[in-house]
């Protein structure tokens, strides 16, 4: 009960959305992790909120509108992530952090493949190698993000 009322959830989501369109220098822009997916995975695994596919769908549509990508493109990726998390949640929850990071990395990697499929259908050409950086970065920052959000969640829910 106490988790779901925490203001940390909407705040972290809005922050993630803002970070997704925050301009970065060209050199680092390709390294931007999929913030929204990371936050979604965290809340789903840890507190079970945002567990519905509908949540993922709405978030994805918002992200699509913000980045100007095809309507539904990010939504599809996030739906699939949420579906897989729902299926393996009970296992991922009790993984040690590094193993959890690997699982999250796999989820993000899978999302990237879905995106690649859409881009392929649109015939927009094959992206270069930096396309595969975001899942890697997401995987590396996951343990820290996890600890930070955990700390914030416990502090705000008391």
């Amino acid at each position, binding site marked *: 009960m106490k*988790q779901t009322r925490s203001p940390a959830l909407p705040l972290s989501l809005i922050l993630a959305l803002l970070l997704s369109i925050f301009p970065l220098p060209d050199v680092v822009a390709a390294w931007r992790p999929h913030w929204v997916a990371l936050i979604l995975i965290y809340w789903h695994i840890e507190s079970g*909120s945002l567990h519905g596919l509908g949540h993922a*769908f709405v978030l994805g549509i918002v992200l699509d*509108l913000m980045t*100007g990508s095809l*309507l539904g*493109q990010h939504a599809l990726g996030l*739906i699939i992530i949420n579906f897989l998390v729902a299926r393996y949640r009970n296992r991922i929850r009790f993984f040690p952090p590094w193993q959890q990071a690997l699982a999250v990395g796999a989820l993000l990697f899978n999302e990237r493949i879905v995106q690649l499929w859409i881009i392929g259908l*649109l*015939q927009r050409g094959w992206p270069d190698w930096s396309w595969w950086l975001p899942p890697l970065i997401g995987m590396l920052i996951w343990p820290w993000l996890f600890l930070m959000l955990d700390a914030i969640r416990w502090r705000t829910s008391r």
Partner: protein
Amino acid sequence: MAGLRPRDRNALLGAADGTARLIFYALVAITLMALDSRGQYVDRIQHAAASVIEPLFLAVDLPLASIRRLTRNMTARQQLLDRVAKLELDLMQTRAEVSRSLDLREENAGLRDLLGATRRTVYRFIPAELASIDLDPFAHRIMVRRGQRDGILIGMPVMDDLGLIGQVDQVLGKLSRVILISDPDHALPVQILPQGERTIAYGSGSLDELRLNDLPMNTRINENDLVVTSGLGGRFPSGLPVGRVHSIERTPGRAFATARVRTLSNMDRNRIVLIIQTPGEPELEPEPTKVADEHSEQTRPPSSEQSPEAGDSP
């Protein structure tokens, strides 16, 4: 309590329910994508939703804009003086050129009167600053800090001091989204100048390049020829500089020759773009006269060369 809910549901309804929901949502997403990439069915929804999201855009843009303002305030005095001196020099030169081209404009108007051709419309420019927002790198769009309140309409052409950049794609309250001519989905009616050949320039997906995909095999265009908008289709006024032909390929066995065009505009360097305020509804009124106009001067390309030449002379 909340943590147990999904598991309970799974136990009750089985995993098949989850899969069915996944398929349902995935189908909705794919249908949306298909509609979005095919036609204008979702445009209205998209527009309504985007205006709801506009505060987020502004929230991202605000701190960066204020940082830039701050750094501008702190630039050294000497630097500013140098800049002013340089700009004054530029202004003087430009004034001299403009006065010359005013003369040409009068003369051109006179000639057009003699020929009974319609007058060229004079367009107004609205300067707009780029908003600092990163968009999807696969779709070539930019956000500019002008919107409905400044009288921007969908379809208005956007250029910088050197050449055409794109057209307004979506208008919000204070911001609008511009689709670049280099976007793979964008097609632009152009004319290649010394010869006056008309064709369509497609976006290539790389920022400074366009493709001409359906040139006839015996085309007479050469490298370094100037490409300008033709004004057909009524969306862009005619004669805006677009780019220069970079290379021409005639692949044996293909029906058409293709060419690459380097754009004149400099998208990497710009902070300010110019939105061209086309009078009234862009499609309906000017088009018939324009088309008739084009046809009547088909054999006389020099008359449509006036404005690019003026931009070219320095």
